[in-house]
């Protein structure tokens, strides 16, 4: 079964590879951009990295390098946005965590505002942040494979029935936890729509109107949740649960569907 899963994953990899641009080598372009970065030619490096991203490619390393390049150019909001995107793909990368911590320290937003959510919510987020969506999906496949394996063993080796029952129950628990976590992450991607403020200072207004009174201010790099969009305006929620309307162009969504 594991072999079947691995073969299937390889098939999908080939499927993705086939959809890539003919004659365009993103890996080569990535190396070129990294070379430009190492020569402190950040604007040129940025163009190449953005080109790769613009053609529909993504990887944790690409987003990480985009974050670094934007930070070098003093564009804090974009830097944090790309770091957050990289974090979705590589939540265990220590370099990335370090750079995010550093970029966050440059924010104007008071740290207390970022940590305004409940302690328990932050703990849950921290636990779920360890896994990637694809990682969890593969984990579920492996769990399914192992359950199948143990059931087949139980058919042929009746003496192992007791052991098999325990193993299957354990795997079922792992399965349930993984399914819950995956569901939460999918919910985050599909419905919560986390975003990062890109403009220096953004006025969040009571209504989606330019002349509406300002409710509160958002600073570059602040994390928000986009609740709904109406024309050029989006209703957003800050970490302290304050809700207001801002221009849709002033933020970037972290999860790309």
């Amino acid at each position, binding site marked *: 079964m594991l072999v079947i899963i691995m073969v299937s994953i390889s098939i999908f990899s080939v499927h993705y590879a086939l959809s890539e641009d003919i004659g365009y080598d993103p890996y080569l372009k990535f190396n070129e951009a990294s070379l430009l970065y190492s020569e402190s030619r950040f604007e040129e490096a940025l163009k190449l990295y953005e080109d790769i991203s613009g053609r529909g490619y993504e990887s944790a390393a690409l987003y990480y390098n985009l974050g670094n390049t934007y930070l070098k150019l003093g564009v804090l909001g974009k830097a944090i946005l790309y770091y957050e995107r990289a974090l979705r793909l590589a939540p265990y990368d220590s370099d990335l965590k370090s750079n995010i911590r550093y970029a966050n320290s440059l924010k104007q937003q*008071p740290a207390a505002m970022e940590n305004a959510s409940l302690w328990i919510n932050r703990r849950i987020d921290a636990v779920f942040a360890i896994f990637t969506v694809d990682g969890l999906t593969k984990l579920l496949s492996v769990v399914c494979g192992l359950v199948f394996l143990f*059931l087949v063993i139980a058919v042929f080796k009746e003496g192992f029935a007791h052991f098999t029952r325990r193993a299957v129950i354990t795997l079922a628990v792992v399965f349930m936890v993984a399914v819950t976590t995956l569901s939460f992450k999918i919910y985050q991607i599909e419905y919560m729509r986390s975003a990062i403020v890109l403009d220096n200072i953004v006025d969040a207004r009571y209504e989606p109107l330019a002349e509406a009174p300002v409710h509160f201010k958002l600073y570059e790099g602040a994390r928000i949740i986009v609740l709904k969009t109406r024309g050029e305006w989006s209703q957003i929620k800050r970490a302290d649960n304050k809700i207001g309307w801002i221009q849709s162009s002033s933020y970037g969504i972290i999860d790309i569907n």
Partner: protein
Amino acid sequence: MISKFKKFILLILLIAITLPVLAQQKDIEITLDNTEISLGASIRMDMVFDDAEDMPEPTMPEIKGLKISYLRSTDMISRLDGKIRRGRRHTYLIMPETTGVFTIGPFDFVYNGTEYVSKKIGIRITSGLSRPTELKPETASEEEFRAKENAFFIMVSDKDRVYVNEPFQIAAALYYKDIQVTDIEYPALDHEGLSIDEFKSPQASRKQIKGYDYRIITFKNTAFAIRPGDLKLGPAKISCSMYAADASRSTGLAAGSSQKKASLRLESTPRNITVLPLPQGGKPESFKGAVGNFQLSLDVKPEGYIKTGEAITLIMGVSGNGNFNMVSAPVIKENQAFIFYNPSIESETDSYKSFKQIIMPKENFIKEIPEIEFSFFDPIKEKYIILKKGPIAIQVFETEARQASTIIEARDKTIPEKIEQEPIGEGIIYIKETAGKLKGKGLRLYKDKTYLLLHLMPVFLYISIALLYKRHKRFKEDIRYARAKKAQRQARIGLKHAYSILSSGGVEKFYSYIFECIQEYFGNKFNLPHAGITSDVTERVLKSRNADPSVILQVKKFFDNCYLVRFTPYGYEKKDMLDTLEMAKMIIEYCRKI
């Protein structure tokens, strides 16, 4: 023995002498309405002496720094645990003459042979403002003007002529006497053109005004004007509940305890504030609206090696007196060799505000961190003041790998001192040199239907394997079942072979083979020994299975034909053999179903 006896007698005598003394000693119940007040305020002290209804005013000892005045004495009757308690309450007013910590008591009075003893209580006298009278001299006249009222509310400010953004103090005070006041709400204040903070926690005090003992609840606040002109502050309004003696329900001993509750809303007279605009002449470019008297400090981190592209943190502190709401980050002179990030507020108190500014050197030739500047308007000197710090000198030198710079403390720029320290700093970790697996944006396995459908495969596989294994196991364990299954397959093969014999024309061989084939089929199908299968046996078996009588006849006929051909194998043509083969097929097909 005699010695022990003497000790015992002495002990008895000691107890006998001490007991009456102890029996005549009583505690004084002493209470203060406040233990921490400001200079100018007063404390009311009540002393209750049990069983001393006629006790005259006790003479209080002098306490240096405090003036203790006798107010009055009242009879005290109360019921505690079903027992009536009687006594005398003596009330004093303590007025501090200086600041400090004082101890009230312990007191020791003797009345009618009973010794009354009190505990000691500490009080603290501070120098802070606690009454509006200290803010404005004319408040005293307003207090005296309204002195007969049971409750009134006044509001004062420490200045009536201020500049835009210049902070000033407001105090609103509730005065009351002969009533109890509860549920006091924070005052509400009309303040068009003025910015006002929330009122701080109130302070309680007492004061004698024209011989009346008033309790005072004071609320303090800070305000500043946001536009010039003649502005009106107030009126301030306050709501609370009051308890006053209900004369209609007062009877005898309960007179003091019968009270009526009513809501009380009081309003102060408004104050006029003249607000002057800030002068335009001499206004510095770096001025952002700060008004007061401030000092500037600068702290630079890290103090070790700095590489190009690494961050330098400037902590710019502004301290002093003034309007900190309007204090913005000090201005740094533009310099193309640095990346400047927006400053953020690091910490903020009533007298200090600091800003964190991150700058990042882009070039190796940088010699100094630019100068920072902070300007404000001093309302006392009535002029703008500019404060500067820096520039901070940086010495650049080559290292083995790359150029690095060391930050030098800039207080004395004449001889830069090189600081040899471990490299400590903030910065970002270098880019990733390999792209990793580049894949399509938003492509996630959970969205791939084919991938998800693949998960059904193990289910089907498991079902198939389980069924096959079950069948295999039955074949091995259930001979009847195994033979029945085998019968059908063997009959099919046998009939094919019989047809090939028929085609070659061997009559005897054909009938002999097909007879054995059917015999073996019945043997396997009904789990009987092959050799014992005869026409009678098959008839009995088929009847037991309620087979069709016509089929039973056909089977009988088949067996008879086969027997006959064995003995007289002449006169049989191919057609007869085909009929026999068809009959055999029909028998097998019929038996398959039963």
